[in-house]
């Protein structure tokens, strides 16, 4: 997707500044309604989720004590994977957003929560709550857009290294918790800085992260396997814990990719965001920059209600159990102002997001202009673009874009006919 201001048909061109402010007021009203009715029922909900999660985790770990026995391994691994997903998604992510701070329960509070993840709560709260939620989908400002390692937008120049991005993305998905930890630390930028010029703050946070990683790894890969030693289940338990972490990583990566990555979700140009964005303008950016996943109640809980990514981005600090309730009202507002409420089932959103990763790993227009017949010549050109220096790349790029434009024009006239 091209940043919104450069699209041929800007999807918000029909909105007047008054419309945008009116949208802001309507969304504020929806938010206030939830605040006014927030109470016992919501508190009971999160306590129940925490209770279920703890019992499920303990139960699964107990079953894994005998994981040399294959059915126990399967049962325990499935249970632990679900427990870890619940802990990260519906509990950790949302508690750290401060969604439950109003309860004033020191045990379920954003300032005290530490989650079952390689990244520290402190680092996550900074990079996610402050940076990502404030600068949602602004190219160059929102690190969630490709985590600084991927080409996520047509407007970013293509380099040969981007050919590898489907692979990077997959590896990042498998070890997502470490990826998050690294990008919370802005590891890339900081490692490029000479050692003596790095801020003491970075050193402190890097130390804290390493300590956390060590504790996490000791728990999953040493301590719990050791408990299983008496039944000869050391290695099976280790493998189960590894698998559960892997499953949780792949799952959370997929969910998060679905939130902002599917085709059709808008991105924004840094320069086009006003210095002082109004509340209405901020809301509008959140509305267009997020995508929902449709599905069952269980699916919503397992995604930490990030399946209601649009509602979450509009109201990041409302209790997650309320997103489903406000969704119809939010959707009605999209309809009223003729905006695209981006929603699809999980497999479709995952496919769409991956399709974009692959498409953008290739030069603009390449995928569109390639068919079975011209594949060999297209590959040859791609090879040249990847190996023959900037001049060749630029010339080939220009040609590709011209062809792609012509193709679209032909398709349009064929359709018209």
């Amino acid at each position: 997707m091209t940043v919104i201001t450069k699209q041929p048909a800007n999807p918000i061109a029909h909105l007047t500044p008054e419309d945008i402010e009116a949208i802001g007021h309507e969304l504020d009203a929806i938010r206030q309604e939830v605040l006014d009715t927030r109470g016992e029922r919501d508190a009971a909900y999160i306590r129940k989720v925490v209770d279920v999660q703890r019992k499920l985790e303990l139960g699964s770990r107990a079953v894994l004590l005998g994981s040399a026995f294959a059915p126990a391994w399967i049962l325990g691994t499935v249970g632990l994977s679900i427990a870890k997903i619940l802990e990260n998604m519906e509990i950790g992510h949302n508690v750290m957003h401060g969604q439950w701070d109003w309860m004033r329960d020191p045990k379920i509070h954003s300032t005290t929560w530490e989650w079952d993840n390689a990244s520290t709560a402190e680092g996550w709260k900074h990079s996610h709550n402050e940076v990502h939620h404030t600068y949602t989908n602004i190219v160059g400002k929102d690190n969630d857009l490709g985590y600084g390692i991927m080409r996520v937008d047509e407007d970013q120049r293509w380099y040969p290294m981007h050919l590898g991005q489907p692979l990077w993305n997959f590896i990042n998905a498998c070890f997502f918790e470490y990826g998050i930890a690294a990008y919370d630390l802005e590891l890339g930028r900081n490692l490029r800085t000479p050692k003596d010029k790095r801020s003491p703050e970075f050193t402190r946070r890097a130390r804290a992260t390493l300590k956390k990683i060590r504790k996490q790894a000791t728990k999953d890969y040493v301590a719990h396997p050791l408990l299983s030693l008496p039944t000869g289940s050391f290695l099976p338990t280790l493998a189960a814990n590894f698998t559960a972490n892997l499953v949780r990583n792949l799952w959370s990566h997929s969910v998060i990719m679905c939130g902002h990555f599917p085709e059709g979700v808008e991105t924004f140009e840094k320069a086009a965001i006003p210095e002082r964005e109004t509340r209405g303008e901020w809301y509008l950016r959140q509305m267009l920059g997020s995508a929902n996943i449709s599905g069952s109640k269980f699916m919503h809980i397992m995604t930490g209600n990030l399946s209601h990514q649009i509602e979450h981005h509009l109201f990041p600090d409302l209790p997650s159990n309320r997103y489903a309730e406000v969704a119809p009202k939010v959707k009605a507002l999209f309809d009223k102002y003729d905006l695209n409420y981006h929603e699809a089932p999980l497999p479709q959103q995952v496919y769409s997001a991956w399709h974009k990763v692959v498409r953008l790993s290739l030069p603009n227009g390449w995928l569109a202009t390639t068919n079975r017949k011209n594949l060999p010549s297209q590959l040859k050109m791609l090879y040249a673009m990847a190996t023959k220096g900037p001049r060749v790349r630029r010339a080939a790029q220009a040609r590709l874009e011209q062809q792609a434009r012509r193709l679209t024009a032909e398709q349009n006239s064929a359709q018209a006919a």
Partner: protein
Amino acid sequence: MTSPAPVLRPVGNARAGAAPRWSRWRREVGATLTKAAEVLATPLVPADYLDVFAPLRKGADLRARVVAVEPETADAATLVLRPGADWAGHVPGQYIRLGVDVDGVRQWRAYSLTHGPRADGCISVTVKAVPDGVVSPYLVHRLKPGVLVHLEQAAGEFVLPEPGSPRHPARLLCITAGSGITPVIGMLRNLYPSTAAGVVRTARGATYDITVVHLAPSEPDTIFARDLRALADAGVIRLVSRYDDVHGIFDVAQLSDLVPDLAERTTLACGPGGLLDALTDHHAAAGLPLSTEQFRPTTIVPGEGGTVRFSAGGADTTVETDGARSLLDAGEDAGVLMPSGCRMGVCFGCVVPLRSGAVRDLRNGALTTAVPGETGPDGVPIQTCISAAAGACEIAIP
């Protein structure tokens, strides 16, 4: 995880060295097990898991389970609570802090214990529902047996002079108004337990000579009216009840008529600020000893409020408050985890540093200011429960 090792006394020469070694060994094993449990539970702590199954166990944060809610009057009820294993007991007259979730929000309030140590190991408090109150109407009308509440150990100095102290055996005058009877009834029930057969006379009870002056709007809504009358009928206390609807509004000048031997008695008083202030003046003028307990602060007409920034470990919360709202309430309403205690300026459980700006003492209007660079790096300690913003200020939450 482990209990502290018992102190074993060495028995005979052969085992003289063994006992300390044994206890050291137990301590070390205990410490190792605790460590292991922490490694297994990280990033949570073992207690987070144990709490799911045994919230009242030894070593847990102190909690209690509601056993019964017994109505006393139309708007007051006694809560019987079974405290967790670490409950350390109390002296009658002391209060506990109770943390309950009202509409999902944790609220802490102080309540006087209304009895001595009970045979069943439970504790009880008696709550009067304050109109428009957040917590008391919930406790009286909505709380159900089985609910877990949070608890702190008993505290407070408003207790009877102990046998052996210079003021004992004591001739006492207890002046109580409305729900201010609660700490006093705790003392009286402990001295003069009542059974099915009537009030029991104890040796300890016999060493006290107590007159109670109890003030209330009317008899039907007087908590413990029956208990007081029973004690008076049994002859263990002298009771003077004054009801506004019958006797008119009480005036401290009447005291010497109601209690002729006033000058020989030590006064314990619990009631609203106005009454206690009047008594303080009266007793000071007469040179009489007085000890008081108050349930909420007497506040002044406030000034302007301001913008308050609560900074808690890098996470800042900023709120606009008016000059009448305590910083404790303002912070709590914004979801900040504020330390607190009695909520009325006596326990200092709410003290946090004021980093910059000014706050006003809600009891007397006194201003406290902090100027970064001038007032020291740690700021100026303030009690948030009786302070309100007086302009912009910043407060650090530990």
